[in-house]
C-alpha cells in the first residue's frame, strides 16, 4: 500500500521509486553486457529508458495486487519486488532461476508476489489481467490488477475485448500502456489509426497520460489512478510516454531509427530526470551516491550467485507439466 507521503513532498516515495529504477537499470546494463558476451540464451528485450513507469506504479501496489507483463518485462518484474538473484538465474537459464530456467527473459513470473508473468505473446497479458481483476474484485479487498503493454499491442483485438469487459463489469484493471513509439522495427504511428485516449473515452474508462520518463509525474498519476481504482473498483488506463533506448531486442542493428533520436532519448533519461527530481524534493546530500552504490553492490552479488548456479539437470525435463499431488492455492 502507498507509503504515507504528503502529496506535495513525495521525497520518500521518490526515493523508493528511484531505487527501483536503479535496480532495473543496473540489472539490464548487466544483461546487455552478458548478451554481448554470449551468455544469455534466446531473445533479450531491454527496457532501458522505461524504468520509471513500473517503478512508480509499484510504489502503490501491495503483494495482493497482481501484475502481468509482456516481452519487455524485466522492469515490471523487478519493480514488483522479484528477487534479483532468481531473476538473473532465470534469464541465464540456470536451475536456480525463479522459473527453474524453463521460461527465460520472456516468461519471468513470481506468483507469490502476484507477478503473473512476462509474456511472449503481444497483448496476452490483457485478458489474463482482466480475469485476475475479476478474482480480486470478488475478494473485496480493493486490490487491483495491472497489465503493462506496449503501443504496438494496441492493434490487437484483445485490447478491445478487454476494455469492453473491464468497463462493463467495472473491474479494477490498470491498463498501463508504455508508449515508446516503436513496434519492433516500425514506428507505431504506421500501425495505428487510433489514440488510446480516444478509446478510453469511447469505453468510458478513466484515462490519464504522463511523461513516463519522469518519476514525479509517474508518481502522481499512479497514485491518483490506483487510489481511484481502490476506492471505486473501476478500471483505469494510463498512457506513459517513454523511450525505447535500445533496439527491439539485443542484436538489433536499428538501421531504421531516425537521426537525432538517440540524443533526444538521452535528454529524457529517466534516471537523470529522477536525480533532478530528488534534488528538487530536497533529498539529503549523498543519498543518491549511497543508493547507487548499494544497488550496484546488490546487483553484483546477485549476478555472482546466479552465475555460479548450475544449468538445469536434463533429467528434470518433464517435471511440472502437470501438477503432482493436487493443488495448493496461493
Amino acid at each position, binding site marked *: 500500500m502507498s507509503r504515507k507521503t504528503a502529496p506535495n513532498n513525495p521525497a520518500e516515495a521518490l526515493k523508493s521509486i528511484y531505487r527501483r529504477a536503479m535496480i532495473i537499470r543496473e540489472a539490464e546494463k548487466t544483461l546487455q553486457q552478458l548478451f554481448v558476451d554470449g551468455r544469455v540464451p534466446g531473445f533479450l528485450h531491454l527496457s532501458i529508458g522505461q524504468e520509471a513507469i513500473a517503478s512508480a506504479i509499484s510504489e502503490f501496489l501491495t503483494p495482493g495486487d497482481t501484475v502481468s507483463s509482456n516481452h519487455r518485462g524485466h522492469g515490471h518484474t523487478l519493480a514488483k519486488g522479484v528477487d534479483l538473484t532468481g531473476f538473473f538465474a532465470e534469464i541465464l537459464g540456470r536451475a536456480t532461476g525463479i522459473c527453474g530456467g524453463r521460461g527465460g527473459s520472456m516468461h519471468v513470473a513470481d506468483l507469490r508476489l502476484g507477478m503473473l508473468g512476462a509474456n511472449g505473446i503481444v497483448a496476452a497479458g490483457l485478458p*489474463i489481467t*482482466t*480475469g485476475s481483476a*475479476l478474482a480480486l474484485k470478488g475478494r473485496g479487498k480493493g486490490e487491483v490488477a495491472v497489465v503493462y503493454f506496449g503501443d504496438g499491442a494496441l492493434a490487437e483485438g*484483445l485490447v478491445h475485448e478487454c476494455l469492453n*469487459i473491464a468497463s462493463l463489469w467495472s473491474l479494477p484493471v490498470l491498463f498501463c500502456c508504455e508508449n515508446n513509439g516503436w513496434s519492433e522495427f516500425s514506428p507505431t504511428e504506421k500501425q495505428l489509426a487510433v489514440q488510446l485516449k480516444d478509446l478510453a473515452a469511447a469505453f468510458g474508462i478513466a484515462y490519464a497520460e504522463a511523461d513516463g520518463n519522469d518519476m514525479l509525474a509517474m508518481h502522481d498519476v499512479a497514485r491518483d489512478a490506483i487510489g481511484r481504482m481502490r476506492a471505486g473498483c473501476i478500471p483505469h488506463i494510463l498512457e506513459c510516454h517513454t523511450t525505447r533506448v535500445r533496439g527491439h531486442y539485443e542484436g538489433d542493428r536499428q538501421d531504421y531509427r531516425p537521426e537525432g533520436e538517440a540524443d533526444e532519448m538521452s535528454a529524457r533519461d529517466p534516471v537523470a530526470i529522477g536525480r533532478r527530481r530528488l534534488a528538487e524534493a530536497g533529498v539529503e546530500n549523498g543519498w543518491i551516491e549511497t543508493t547507487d552504490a548499494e544497488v550496484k553492490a546488490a546487483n553484483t552479488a546477485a549476478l555472482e550467485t546466479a552465475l555460479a548456479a548450475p544449468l538445469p539437470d536434463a533429467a528434470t525435463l518433464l517435471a511440472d507439466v502437470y501438477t503432482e499431488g493436487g493443488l495448493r492455492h496461493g
Partner: protein
Amino acid sequence: MAESRYVRAVTRAMQDAMAADASVILIGEDVAAAGGSFKATRGLLEEFGPQRVYDAPIAEAAIAGMAVGAALSGMRPIAEIMFMDFVTLSMDMLVNQAAKARYMFGGQGSVPMVLRTPHGGGLSAGPQHSQCLEAWFAHIPGLKVVVPATVEDAYSLLRAAIDDPDPVIVVENKALYALKGDLPDAPAPARIGEALVRREGMDVTLVTYGGTLWTALKAAEIAQAEGISVEVIDLRSIQPWDEAAVLASLCRTHRLLIAHEAVEAFGVGAEIAARMADIGFDELDAPILRVAAPFSPVPFSPTLEGEWRVSETKILTALRRLMA
C-alpha cells in the same frame, strides 16, 4: 439413482462443485440469464448469483483468457465456449497460456480452469458448428482433455475436471445432451485418464470415445449375432489416455479397431493406432483399422452429413474386414 439427461448431469456437476467450493465461477456467452445455449447452466445464476455466473460478451479469446487469469488468482473458473468450432478464437489463451504457465514458471503454480465446449454433428448445423477438434488439444503438453459419453460421465468427468489442478478441456456432445441414463445420487468421482470397458468381448478391441460409443455398442451387438465378439473400450479421457487398458484388451483380442466422430486423418485414433503399432505390435494378428470421418468439412445437407458420419454399418464393415 435416478434417470437424468446428459445435459442435466452437466448442470448438476457444476451445481455441486459450486456449492462445495466458492472459488468455482462460470463465464460464457448467455450462460447466466438464459442458462446456456444448450441449457447446460440452467438455474445456476439463480442459485449462485451474478458474482459467480457471468454472461460474457461475444469475445471467445477474452473468455478463455479471463479464465486463465482468474485461475492464476485463486479461482476455479469454468469457461463455456458455445460450439467447439469457436475455440479457434481461444487457442492462444489455451495453448500458449493455460497449458504452459505451470511448466514455464517452473512449477510455481497451477491453472485450475475448465473449458467446456460441445463438439459433433448430426444436427445439420453445418461446417462451422459441428467439428470435433479434440486432437488439437491432445497434442498440447499441459492440457488434459476428457470426452464424456454417458450421463454418469457427464457428471463425473466434469467434476473431476473442476477438481483437477490443471487446465482441462471438457468436450461435450451436442447430440448427446438429450440422452437419458442413470445418474447415481452420489456419483463416484472419475479418475481422469482411466478408460472403461463398456462391453466385454474376445475377438476385437474396439476403442472409441464420445458419441461414437453408442454407435460402437450397437455395432458390437449386431456383430455378436454374426459371431464376432467385440470388446468396446470407452476412452473417456484422451489426454492422458489409458494406454494400459487398451493394451491389456489387445493382448486378449489381438485385433484393434478405433472409431470416432472426428476426421480420421491426424485424429485421435492415429495416436492410439501408432502407440499400439509400437508397444502392442507383437500382439497384433491383423492390421489396425480406423473408422472415422472422411476428409471433408462437415456438410450441411442431411444426406451428405449422414454419409459423412460414422455409422454402425461402417464399423461392421471394418469388424468383418478384421476377422476375414
